[in-house]
Every structure is written in C-alpha cells, then in structure tokens.
C-alpha cells in the first residue's frame, strides 16, 4: 500500500502551495546557481522558467519584491527568495493531501502568543473518494507525541492524564516504532475494563471532543459522500515539539482510507515562535501508530486485547 504511494510522490504528498516552493528552490539551487541565474543573458526568460517550478503565486510575489529592490537581478532574486523564506517560518498548515482512498484537507492556523501558549488551532478533514469502500461511519483517530525540548524528553503526564504516559510506545528500531506516541484520548474519568460487558474504550477523537459545531463524522455510500473531521488546538508555553498522525477509518468495516502526518515545534515560547511545521499524506498508519493503538487496547483491556476480561 505504501509502495504504491511511494511511486507517486505527487499524489502522496499532495499539492505544494507555490509560496513554499520558492525557499525550497533557493535552498536547493544554492548561491552558485543564483549567481548563474544573475549572469543569465536573458534573465526574463530564466525567470519565466521559474514559474513552472515555483508556481504563479510565488512568481507574483517575486515580481512585487523586485519592484522594491535595487536593480541587480541577482540581488533582487536572492533577497526576494529570502523574504519568502522568512514569511514561512511561522506558517499555517493548509494543504490538501491525496492519500490511499481519499483526500485530507488541513486547516490548522498558527496561534502566536509571546510569553503565553502558542500552537495551532483548526480542523483536519478527510473526504473519501470513489476507490474507498462504503461505510456508514467514517471517523478519525490520531496518534500523538509531545516532546519537552527543555528536558529533551517525553512530556510526563500525571494525575488523571497519567495513562497517556503509561500507554506510550517504546522504541523498537527493528519494527520501525518510534518512542513516546499514544492515541489522543482524554483518560479522565475512564477506567480499565474489568467485565466483558464493560463498554469498549474508544480510540476515536470525537468520542472525547465532539466539537460538534466545527467537526463531524463521515460516511460513504456509492457517490453519496460525507466528510469526516476533527477540531484540534495543541499548544504550550514551553519549548516543545508536537507530532501527529491522523487516521481515517471506517468504523463498521475497519477499512483504513489513509492518514496525514503533521506537527510543529515551539522553538522559542517566550517569543511565541512556532516553526518546523510539516504535513504529509500517507496510505496507511505507521508501525508506531499501529503500536500506539495496540497499547490503548491493551491498557484498557478492550475486546481482542490480551488483557480483555474473560467474564
């Protein structure tokens, strides 16, 4: 499943907004190439060629910057690309990502609050396509990780949230499992199952935070398709790194439609600096996310787990 997507990176990683390609181009071609561009006998033609690489919006941005810059084409181009790079230091996650059987749309906006809590707020939405199986209920769950960059260790959850730490994945290089991930649930008020008749502890996000005004469950019946979404607001007032893998799954059939990986770093909480944002689509959950889900089921003794009550 992943290999199929791996052969088609355009589809795997989704459409990249033009603005984000400009700094990528700058960093990839380097100063020497920039110098060659400046020496190009027909700089207009060279710039026109850029459009196919960085897109029309980035070209428009370059044109605006050129109007305000000294006449040197090399200096103008280099400075404008640097300007674009600065602008994305703190950026929203707003791309869409075609995955195995549908499309994720990110709509997470940066909340920059110097000296207070900064993070990202918004929605993650999944729309199945025609290749996906029908389902009466398509829902999202997500594996998450929070690293405290002050201690360079996993954030330690205590009190009612202690199960988040207890459920975390342990590193296993052979299995490709990263440490510190758990399924994003609210453990407050939950108990481990002690009787077979006890209800299953859900892994689905909206069973804890329905945020019904801003998110919903999805479905698919033939061409009748409803999106599934969640509303989230991770953030902190300490330097830290947030990582997520959001999974779209049919509750009734168990079919996985795809996942989106995303995250960000609060690198200078005092100044409200949110950076190193990323987002990418995948065909299916990583081994880490699968292990995190297994850990949840084992921790609470869900049906099918080795810890599930027999009576």
């Amino acid at each position: 499943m992943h290999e199929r997507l791996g052969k088609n990176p355009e589809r795997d990683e989704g459409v990249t907004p033009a603005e984000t390609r400009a700094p990528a181009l700058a960093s990839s071609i380097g100063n020497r190439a920039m110098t060659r561009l400046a020496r190009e006998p027909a700089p207009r033609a060279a710039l026109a060629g850029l459009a196919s690489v960085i897109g029309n919006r980035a070209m428009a941005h370059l044109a605006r910057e050129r109007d305000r810059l000294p006449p040197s084409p090399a200096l103008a181009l280099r400075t404008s690309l640097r300007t674009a790079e600065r602008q994305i230091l703190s950026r929203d996650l707003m791309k869409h990502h075609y995955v195995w059987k549908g499309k994720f749309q990110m709509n997470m906006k940066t909340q920059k609050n110097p000296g207070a809590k900064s993070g990202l707020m918004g929605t993650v939405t999944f729309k199945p396509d025609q290749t996906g199986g029908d389902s009466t209920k398509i829902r999202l769950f997500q594996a998450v990780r929070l690293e405290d960059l002050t201690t360079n260790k996993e954030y330690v959850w205590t009190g009612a949230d202690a199960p988040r730490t207890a459920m975390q994945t342990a590193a296993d290089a052979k299995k490709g499992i990263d440490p510190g991930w758990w399924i994003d649930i609210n453990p407050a008020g939950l108990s481990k199952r002690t009787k077979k008749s006890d209800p299953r502890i859900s892994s689905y996000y909206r069973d804890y935070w329905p945020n019904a005004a801003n998110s919903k469950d999805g479905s698919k019946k033939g061409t009748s398709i409803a999106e599934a979404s969640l509303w989230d607001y991770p953030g902190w007032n300490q330097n830290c790194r947030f990582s997520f893998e959001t999974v779209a799954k049919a509750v009734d059939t168990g079919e996985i439609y795809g996942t989106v990986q995303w995250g960000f770093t609060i690198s200078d909480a005092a100044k409200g600096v949110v950076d190193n944002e990323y987002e990418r689509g995948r065909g299916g959950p990583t081994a880490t996310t699968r292990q995190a889900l297994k850990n949840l089921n084992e921790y609470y003794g869900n049906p099918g787990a080795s810890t599930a009550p027999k009576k």
Partner: protein
Amino acid sequence: MDDDVRRAIAALDDGADPMHLDQTPAVRELVGMGLRAVEPLTTPLLADEQDTRLHAQRAWEGIVYARHGFVSGQGFPDDAAESAAVADLSAVGYSFEDGRAEREAAVRRLSEWLARAER
C-alpha cells in the same frame, strides 16, 4: 451562584491540556454541574480574552452534549442524539471567534435556551 460554580469559573483558564488548549479541569467540572453552570458562564462567554471565551464555550457545549447522552470515551448514544445536541448549539449560535455584538446576541439566545431547558 453556588460556591463550586464560582470557583470553577474563576479557574476556567487554569491548567489547559497542552494537547487540547480548549480543555481545562474547570471546563470538565462545569460540564459535570449541568444547567446550574449555564447562567454563570454568560460572563466568560463575553470576556475580552479569546481563550476564556473558548473555555466557556466548551463548558456550555459539554453541558449540552451530556444532556443528550454523551459520555467521554463512548461518544453519543446514536446519531439522533448528536443531531439533537447540534440543534441546541445551532439555536444559540455562539462562537468564541465572533465579534462582541454577535456574541451578545448569542448569549441572549442562550438565556432563552436555558429558560426552556429548565422547564
């Protein structure tokens, strides 16, 4: 206003969950208090601070969810229950992101909703 409601309102912004900054221990307490917490929530619903309004909104929403059978970790009992909760929220139409005039209008509708709910 009961003392426990007053204490929870005063602590509304304290100890937000880093994974979910809209959630605080006081939000959860207020949800558990049910309808008696709704009228006191109208003050933070009109607060100047966005996060305070967001926490108050989550508390009011949680009260509505619970009235329609929502249980954390289990969700709503069925789609009809969720639809009924959404109908209540839509009837009030409050959003912490709205301007002051819209929020004031929503809070008036919330008072009307509360009067109906308490009958």
